């Protein structure tokens, strides 16, 4: 356990997450390759099976549920490669995780200036 209090809305990708999310992250890492992205798009279920995703991870992929995928051990950098397949950019992903529209999320960012 961490000696520090948790940071709200934040999951540190530590050893516990890295162990839990290994299969999911390994699948997402494979999306660096165009051939692997195509193979995933052709048959998502078969591709997830090939990498041994557990049910929580598979459900997160099926539901495009970013927060669920983080809970299932997903790491932001590898998950971003999955987002790339879906054609989503970082503002889309931000909006999905915060329950905002993309315009609201962009306005939130701009308001920090």
């Amino acid at each position, binding site marked *: 356990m961490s000696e520090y209090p948790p940071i709200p*809305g934040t999951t540190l990708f530590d050893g516990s997450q*890295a162990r839990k999310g290994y299969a999911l992250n390994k699948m997402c890492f494979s999306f660096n390759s165009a051939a692997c992205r195509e193979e995933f798009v052709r048959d998502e279920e078969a591709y997830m099976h090939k990498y041994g995703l557990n049910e929580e991870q598979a459900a997160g992929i099926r539901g495009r549920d970013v927060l669920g995928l983080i809970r299932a051990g997903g790491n932001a950098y590898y998950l971003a490669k999955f*987002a790339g397949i879906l054609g989503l*950019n*970082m503002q889309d992903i931000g909006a999905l995780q915060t329950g905002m529209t993309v315009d609201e999320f962009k306005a939130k960012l701009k308001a920090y200036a």
Partner: protein
Amino acid sequence: MAKIVGMLTTSHVPAIGGAIAKNLQQDAYWKPFFDGFIPVRKWLDEVKPDVAVVLYNDHGLNFFLDKMPTFSVGAAPEYHNADEGWGIPTLAPTRGDVDLSWHLINKLIDREFDITTCQEMLVDHAFTIPLKLFWPQSPCPIPAVPVCINTVQFPLPSAKRCYAFGQAIGDAIRSWDSEKKVVVIGTGGLSHQLDGERAGFINKDFDLKFMDSMINDPAWATQFSIHELVEKTGTQGVELLMWLAARAAVPGTLQKIHSNYHIPISNTASGLMALAAV
């Protein structure tokens, strides 16, 4: 002996690569970011460094969780960029400087930084985009040596440790038996968080204080634990470790050539600094 001419730090957001490919530098969204590089390029034209040492963090191109070195040093004659999976263009390879690589490796291990050495190393946007911003020509006109710090998997090396790592890199460069002029580059940050319910978090006050500390009090941020840095700057804002290490490599009083800070570029508070050795 080799001479360090100064240090450069910049954010390295992937979307910058897309903007360059689409020639959007003068677009209203991008102009405040790209215009920051004009005075820095002018300074580089004057000091003409021969080689760059680039401190950056890999985002899952070269390293996966199967093997995750805390500190790694490139020792390749050439560094290739590749498909990162999120649709940004692949940039031309960058030449390495293998003599400098092995000098760094030998000296760092001598100083008890037991780094991982990489004779093959793919370099991602955190290495290629900053070089492209500082030297828009393709390929990059000067060779570069990549030095990677893990910010993917916790535990990360502490700010204090990264600062000491930077000091050792600076000492190693200055002891290199070469007449070459070296520029040290640190890429990443500033405050941003991509993941979780706190996605979109930015901390302007902290960023500005940190940028000020780079000039006047370079070890300031070493007082914070990694946990505190994540809390203050976001899960990816912790990439300021690269800035700290780059600054530590070029100690003492530096002359500010230029700095720029702009919110937002993608989800990031973007920062740029060029400091010259005096």
